[in-house]
Structures are given as structure tokens and as C-alpha cells.
């Protein structure tokens, strides 16, 4: 148990050095998430509410019946030649600026940001097509309520600093507003995927810090960033061990009474006969080198004395393994297992004990050998 305590202290010290800074980052970013304005941080401040079918007008829908749409089985799907091995999965009818298109999907993950293979066909002509920058501009415009000028659409490839998880190309349209809004649209269907502004970028940065997404990708479950990666797993386990060792230390120190929880308890008055060199003074003598100190009863005698400037010899700092912190008491004290191991029975019979193994409340008169200058001077002054 004693060496276990030592280990906990050692583990705790070194782990805190390793994870300390990240611990602070976790807490501060956590506070940010706690306090942030979720509405603002969504990036949708200047985003118009648009139905998923891109604002299909009632009249368009009613007249759809009159449109002669090419049946899907007549589509020239041979044009999917770029991915000949990928089987056809799904065909969606999508409306873009009041015109119907077939969105032909051959690969799609459970999440929209995962890699997708799909093509767009004009549902009336049946021709393979792609939306023009002019159409994208128009859609972007209708989704933006800010009124500032919008840039020309740009088709860009992943990765995106504004959307780390996204693995498909997107159209980007930038607004010239003070919050630096950027509008991202689906490269194939032109659907507005998200608005990103400086508020949203701050939130994304906070997530990056919280998830330790520092671009050091190893042991990633997938390349989409996020929180499943080797670095954060190592740090999380270290932080867990830090917490556990901390709690072990806390419990041990509490049991030993070296805690300030005992501020309120009554101090114990103990007479200490001290000498700075062997041999021990006779416990029954009335030496002039006697000092009366008030000790915290719940503390170990070793700590209690040390707090009064009376330092006993020790190599293990009170862990009960070095056998150095010997003292003599004028009353009989129970022998602890650590004492059995570290003191010869002849000394135990004479009443020698280890100060780290007994509480201050157990003694009233003791004899000790002090080390270090502060003990000497302190004892000397008061004596």
C-alpha cells in the first residue's frame, strides 16, 4: 500500500506535465461551448429558410404533370462511364430553379459528407448536365438575406477549412459582408449545404482544440477529422489515469490526515525531546532540549512535526518504506506492518516506532533526532 501511494504520486506528477496544457484547453473550450450563442455559432445568421426542394412553386408543381419527363429507364446511363463498376443505387427527382433533374446516385454513405458518386441529368431532355455558375449564383443569392455582394461561384475540392468532414467537392460563394459569410452548395444538385461565417469559424476552431484535431492524423478511423484518433485517445487515457491517481492521492492524504479539512479540529499538545545527533535522549529525562508543540491530531506524526519545522530523517517522505523516521514514545504504541518490516524487533521492544506510521493524537511525549537546519533553529529558538 505504501509503495502504491508513492507510485500514485509519481504517476500524478508526470502525467500532469504531459496533459496539463491540453487539460486547460479542454476546460476553456468546454466553457466556450457552455456559454456560446448557439444561434450565432450555427453560421445561419443570414440564411434564408428554404424548403429542401429548392423553393418549388405551387404552380410549377401543379404543371409538372404537363412536363414530358423522360422515363428513367430511357436515360443514357452509359455516360456514367467514369464509374463503370459502381452499381446504380438511387435516382432522386430534384428541382433546381423550377426545373426537374434526375440525380443519379451510385455511391452514397450514411452521412452526406461521406464520399458520393452521382450525376445529374435533365429530367425533360434526358441529357447529362451540370449546373452552371449562373444557376449556382442564383441559388446562393436566394439563400442569402444579407444584401451584400456575392462573389462568382467557385467549384472547389476537399479538404475544406470551413467544413473539415466534407469529402465531396462543393461550390463556394463568398459574401462581402463584415462577418465573412461563405455559402457552400452541393457540386451536383446545387442544394445549399451550409453557411459559414466568422462566428461559425470560431466554434469550429474550439471544436478542433477540444478534439485535438491538430492535423496529426494517425490511427484515424476515417480521414474526416473529428474525435476518433490516436492522439486524443492517448491523451484521454493519460488524463483518466491522472484523475484516478489524483483521487487515490486525495483519499490517502485524507486518511493520513495531512489535509486542511482538519483545520477545525483541536490541536494536540506534544512534548518533544530533540537531539541533532544520536543517541536518542532518554524519554523520561527532563532535558533542556524539550519543546512543546501543538500538532494536528489527525496528521501523521511525521507530517505534523515537519509542519512545525521539526524534520526527521527520511528517504521515502512518509511512505513507510525507508525506516528512517524513528522516534521513541513514553507510551506503548501498536506496531504497524511497516514497522515490523523496517525496524529490528530489539528496537521495537525498546519502544522505537516510525513517525509516519502514527498519528499525532497517539502521543504526548516523544524523543526524536532532528535533521536539517530549520528544525535545529526552530527548536532552538522556541526552547
Amino acid at each position: 500500500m505504501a509503495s502504491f501511494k508513492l507510485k500514485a504520486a509519481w504517476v500524478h506528477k508526470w502525467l500532469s506535465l504531459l496533459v496539463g496544457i491540453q487539460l486547460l484547453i479542454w476546460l476553456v473550450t468546454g466553457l466556450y461551448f457552455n456559454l456560446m450563442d448557439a444561434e450565432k455559432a450555427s453560421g445561419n445568421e443570414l440564411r434564408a429558410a428554404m424548403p429542401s426542394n429548392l423553393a418549388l412553386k405551387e404552380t410549377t408543381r401543379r404543371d409538372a404533370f404537363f412536363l414530358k419527363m423522360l422515363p428513367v429507364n430511357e436515360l443514357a446511363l452509359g455516360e456514367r462511364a467514369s464509374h463503370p463498376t459502381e452499381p446504380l443505387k438511387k435516382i432522386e427527382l430534384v428541382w433546381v430553379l423550377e426545373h426537374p433533374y434526375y440525380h443519379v446516385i451510385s455511391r452514397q454513405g450514411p452521412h452526406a459528407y461521406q464520399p458520393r458518386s452521382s450525376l445529374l441529368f435533365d429530367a425533360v431532355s434526358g441529357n447529362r448536365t451540370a449546373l452552371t455558375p449562373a444557376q449556382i449564383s442564383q441559388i446562393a443569392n436566394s439563400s442569402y438575406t444579407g444584401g451584400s455582394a456575392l462573389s462568382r461561384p467557385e467549384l472547389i475540392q476537399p479538404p475544406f477549412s470551413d467544413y473539415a468532414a466534407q469529402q465531396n467537392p462543393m461550390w463556394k460563394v463568398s459574401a462581402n459582408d463584415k462577418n465573412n459569410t461563405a455559402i457552400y452548395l452541393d457540386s451536383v444538385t446545387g442544394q445549399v449545404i451550409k453557411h459559414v461565417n466568422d462566428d461559425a469559424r470560431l466554434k469550429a476552431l474550439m471544436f478542433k482544440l477540444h478534439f485535438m484535431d491538430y492535423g496529426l492524423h494517425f490511427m484515424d478511423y476515417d480521414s474526416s477529422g473529428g474525435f476518433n484518433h490516436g492522439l486524443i485517445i492517448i491523451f484521454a487515457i493519460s488524463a483518466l489515469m491522472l484523475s484516478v491517481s489524483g483521487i487515490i492521492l486525495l483519499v490517502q492524504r485524507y486518511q493520513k490526515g495531512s489535509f486542511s479539512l482538519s483545520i477545525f479540529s483541536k490541536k494536540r499538545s506534544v512534548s518533544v525531546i530533540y537531539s541533532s545527533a544520536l543517541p536518542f535522549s532518554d524519554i523520561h529525562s527532563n532535558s533542556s532540549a524539550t519543546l512543546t508543540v501543538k500538532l494536528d491530531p489527525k496528521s501523521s506524526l511525521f507530517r505534523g512535526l515537519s509542519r512545525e519545522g521539526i524534520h526527521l530523517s527520511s528517504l521515502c517522505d512518509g511512505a513507510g518504506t525507508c525506516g528512517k523516521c524513528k522516534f521513541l514514545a513514553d507510551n506503548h504504541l501498536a506496531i504497524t506492518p511497516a514497522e515490523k518490516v523496517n525496524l529490528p524487533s530489539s528496537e521495537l521492544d525498546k519502544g522505537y516506532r516510525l513517525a509516519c506510521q502514527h498519528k499525532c493524537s497517539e502521543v504526548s511525549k516523544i524523543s526524536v533526532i532532528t535533521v536539517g537546519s530549520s528544525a535545529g533553529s526552530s527548536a532552538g529558538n522556541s526552547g
Partner: protein
Amino acid sequence: MAAVGLQFLLWTFTGVYMVSMDIHYIHGESLIKPQSTTLNLSSVKVSMSTLFAQYPNASNFTLTQLMGSPIYIVSTGSSKFIVDGSTGVRKPSIDEETAREIAQFYYVKSDAIENTRLIQSSAEMPAELSSRYLPVWQVEFEGIANPTFYISQQTGEVVTKRHDYWRIFDWMWRFHIMDYDDGENVANWFLFIIAALGVAAVLSGSVLLIVRFGEARSEHTR
């Protein structure tokens, strides 16, 4: 401060679980058998124009597959239904027997079904399901970690998969954000107070750390 220590333990313990479990696995993506069947267009005998004529309230159609055969999912704004892609016949909403069939078709393993029930209102809905999917069939399997599929009564799609790893994750999340009632609110006072105290604890800890390492050094040099 003891509360902070305890919460540190909870934060780090729940954090380890959440970062070390693959989020796609947590979402139950591995419970679904990979589907490789191609949508066979030659068997699709109904065109979208015909559907528009038949269902004038509809706005969108998606041609997809249900258990390997082509279907149209028809959306009318407020609700959805399915139409057989080869016959053009509107299918009734999914009954219990079909729900079980669908569940077994898409489930990656062959565990028996333990329980099936229809959930129609948010009052009878378990917390692990989102109300936007209602009405759904809940199909519980007997396997390890209690896999459960939720199948839309309107479209037959497997809309949500859950297993105990997700359920544990959800609890971990609650303990992580310290929202001990419904687990949805990061902006709670409790979290604020403990996190602020936590910052103080880490700062005072770093002072101690510097002192400790300083001591160790001076002992070495002595």
C-alpha cells in the same frame, strides 16, 4: 473542490469511451448488411410523369430499392408513401410482418427477433429515437448489445439503428456535459460552475507542479 475532482474523473472516463469508440460503429452502421444489388432500371415500368398525373399532391420522387426490388418513395410535403416501381401500384403502409422481414433482410447477423411494436406518437417513443421519423416499427433483436432497428411505417426505410454501445455513449455524453436531466443542454449552470472551478484547479495544479519539479531539481543539485 472534491466535486471538481469527481467530475474530472467523469470527464476523463467518459471522454476515453467517446474518443476510443468509432463513431460510425456507435451509430450502428456495422449492423446493416452491405447492399450491392444494382437498381435494375429495365424492371421500372412507371415513369415519374405518370406518378405526377396519379398523385397531384406529390412534389418529389425517389427511385430506390426495398429488399432488392425497385420502389418509388413519394413525398407530398407532409407525408410519404411507396409505390411499386415495376407495377405502379401504391403499397399499403408497412405491416408488422413486412417490418420483421425488412429488419431481417438488412440486419448483418441472423439473430432472432425478440420483439416488434409500432410507435405512432412521441408519448410512446423511447428517448433514443427522433420524433421526425414517426410512425415507425421498433424491431428488437436478441443478439449481443440488444440491436434495435426502427423502420419507417410509411417508406420501409431503416431510419435508425441502435445498440447498447450507442446507449452507453449517450449516457457518457450526459455525464460529459453534466446535463443530468434530458442530456441535451450544454448550456447549463452546473457545467459552468464546475468547469470554471476546474480551470482554477488546473492553474493551481500547475503552480504546484512547477514547485515540485523545482524541489526535485534542487535536491539533485544538493
